[in-house]
């Protein structure tokens, strides 16, 4: 397939995944606020950190209040990672590959965008943020389901899935990074109902609460971290995401698993291998924050390698 098209499908899926994650983060925070008496600023500032845009936020907003943060993360068109900007980019990418994706996928992405645009115009979000966010999340899930069911699971689909999973792994690592240290037992909270609520909220941020419960009875910081990093079956855990992204990468190239023919395969395969043989106690002993930070840096590196191996249309071509 065309390099440009592969590039667009990869980013279309990344942006949809990004928008859905941000919507979920905001939604969970709104709910948590109803249960936990915690200073507003402490509750909302971390959400800006999750998207990695602290500097941009500080430059254009005063305090990290609910109103400001929600605005920054939903409809702020100057914030390239807001829900609006992400979906706009997803749709522009989709438009440029409309002939490759199914009509149903295009129609769904377009409906999501129009819903977002209309919500922005009518101030519906200020009235009922939770209602809006849950509606929006559903529209993203509908896109994922439509893509699964209406598009041939060939090369283009695998590029899309790879983009989605790399974005998801990155977002899970960020939410864990930001929340984990905030939530480590504090003297005044230990054993109080608030403690449990906060950990529950972190799991809910990754849509992981119910699935976690099936695996672990009690909520401990170590088990939560293990679930979100190392679980092989939960579809938002970092380990699961890189395993499946690696599968897609090998489907694209046809290289047998366990071997590599380009830098993307080498780097991604190595990351999967490390996670395969990791234990949570080692990770925490070595410093969770450092671990997650390095994980994100490696995902960036893998993203660059994918670009270089498949999308680089500036590559030299023999003279005519």
């Amino acid at each position, binding site marked *: 397939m065309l*390099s440009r098209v592969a590039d667009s499908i990869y980013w279309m899926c990344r942006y949809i995944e990004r928008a859905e994650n941000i919507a979920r983060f905001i939604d969970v925070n709104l709910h948590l606020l109803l249960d936990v008496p915690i200073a507003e600023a402490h509750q909302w500032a971390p959400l800006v950190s999750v998207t990695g845009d602290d500097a941009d936020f500080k430059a254009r907003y005063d305090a990290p209040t609910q109103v400001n943060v929600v605005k920054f993360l939903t409809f702020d068109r100057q914030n390239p990672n807001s829900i609006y900007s992400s979906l706009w980019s997803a749709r522009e990418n989709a438009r440029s590959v409309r*002939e490759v994706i199914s*009509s149903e996928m295009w129609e769904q992405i*377009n409906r999501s965008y129009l819903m977002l645009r209309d919500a922005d115009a009518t101030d519906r979000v200020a009235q009922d943020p939770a209602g809006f966010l849950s509606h929006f999340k559903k529209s993203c899930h509908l896109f994922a389901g439509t893509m699964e069911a209406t598009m041939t699971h060939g090369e283009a689909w695998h590029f899309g899935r790879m983009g989605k999973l790399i974005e998801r792994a990155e977002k899970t690592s960020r939410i864990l990074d930001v929340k984990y240290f905030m939530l480590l037992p504090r003297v005044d909270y230990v054993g109080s109902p608030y403690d449990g609520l906060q950990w529950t909220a972190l799991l809910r941020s990754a849509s992981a609460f119910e699935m976690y419960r099936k695996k672990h009875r009690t909520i401990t910081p170590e088990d939560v971290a293990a679930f979100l990093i190392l679980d092989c079956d939960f579809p938002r855990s970092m380990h699961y995401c890189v395993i499946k992204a690696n599968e897609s990468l090998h489907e694209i190239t046809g290289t047998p698993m366990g071997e590599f023919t380009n830098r993307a395969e080498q780097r991604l395969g190595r990351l999967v291998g490390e996670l395969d043989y990791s234990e949570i106690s080692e990770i925490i002993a070595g410093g969770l924050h450092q671990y997650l930070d390095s994980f994100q840096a490696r995902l960036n590196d893998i993203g660059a390698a994918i670009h270089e191996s498949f999308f680089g249309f500036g590559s030299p*071509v*023999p003279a*005519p």
Partner: protein
Amino acid sequence: MKFNGYDTKGYYDELIDGSGRPRPGAMLLIDRIEGLPPGDLARRQQAAEAALMNMGITFAVYGDERGAEKIWPFDLIPRIVEPEDWRRIHAGLRQRIRALNLFIDDVYHDQKIVNDGVVPRDLVESAGAFRRQCMGLSPPGGIWCHVTGTDLVRDDDGTIYVLEDNMRCPSGVSYVLENRQLLKRTFPRVFEASGVLPVVDYPDRLLATLHHVSPVRGEAATAVVLTPGSFNSAYYEHSYLAQQMGIELVEARDLVVSDGYVKMRTTKGLARVDVIYRRIDDDFLDPLAFRADSMLGVPGLFEVYRAGRVALANAPGTGVADDKVIYAYVPKMIRYYLGEDAILPNVPTYLCWQEADRQHVLDRLDKLVVKAANESGGYGMLVGPHATQAERETFAAKIIASPRNYIAQPVVNLSRVPIMAGDHFEGRHVDLRPYILFGEDIFVMPGGLTRVALRKGSLVVNSSQGGGSKDTWVVDAAGASSPSWSVQGM
């Protein structure tokens, strides 16, 4: 909603005759519409518009980079073409395309028609789209104009004229296909009972046309659609056609000339391209051959084309035949090449380069339509009766300064079709653009794009100037969907 009180006075109405009765092909439809409960038609119209919006069949509003997008206005009541009209149009367009293609081929080879004094040499060579680079070129099968969209109009006396031959990159066919989808959902029973000829096979026929001219035969041939990119106003159509044909949609940056072939950059390296359905102008195809100052295009593409290693549809240089001055000579071409009289007449045309015509035009600017020879989309045009004195004077000066570049025609009182105007029906002026494919044979799409001037009284149907579209139903006299004329003579 009822049609009593619907006013057809002074114009030819395509659905209702002069005495207020539905024309034969429209009877079922009018019956159905009149039988709908109040408000139902308006609801169907809204549902159709919402569907267009959700399908993203929109164009961006100029100057608003994020946000404002509009659907191209669409009116639910179809335009119906009666069988005897269609038979004439079908035969007339096949004849016209055959002659025009022979003309283009002649212009770039022996120029017999020029040497015989039928068309003046300087008119041909001064046509804006004449390409000297194409002299001596012989495209596969001798076919130059693979895809044409001819604009037809009907005057108040019922005569159907050819208004323009669009032989470069005519657009709009995707609207025909989408409008049909919507109408089938809106009036399923009437549609079936009326025996409307299908348009759905257009993408298949277009692909067959492309394969027909490919240097590589059969299934192995790789055809692509070449688009200027997603900012282009017709991008939706480019993408739609590529999708319907199941071929790649490429931009110039995806293509490169390597080892004497045109190739596209893929995730697995370079892959050869055999046929390019290009939706960009000649000027932007190849900076080495056409415009050195252009950053667009694929350097070296024209050399590959000359060597017969890639086919282009339409061929470069085809535009020489849709110059509005050359247009006036088409009836003569038909006689010259085919020895026949034109089945579909031209609108009478005054050529300002001829002194007598020029004087006549300048004296009657308030009664004529003046057009620049190389403009399209309703630009570079003066509608005399609706213009101000100052506008007429500006045009008079332009005509005197550059007579070769202007023609004038009498105002054609375009025929009308009803549209919904609030709680009643009103007639609005329409034209018709059937699409013609020239491959193994000449295929005329049954129907085409009906453009409608939605503003009351307006004669300008262009989308840039308040025009919308309607579905076009060519009804079968037999009342069943026998494809008798779509295959006639093939």
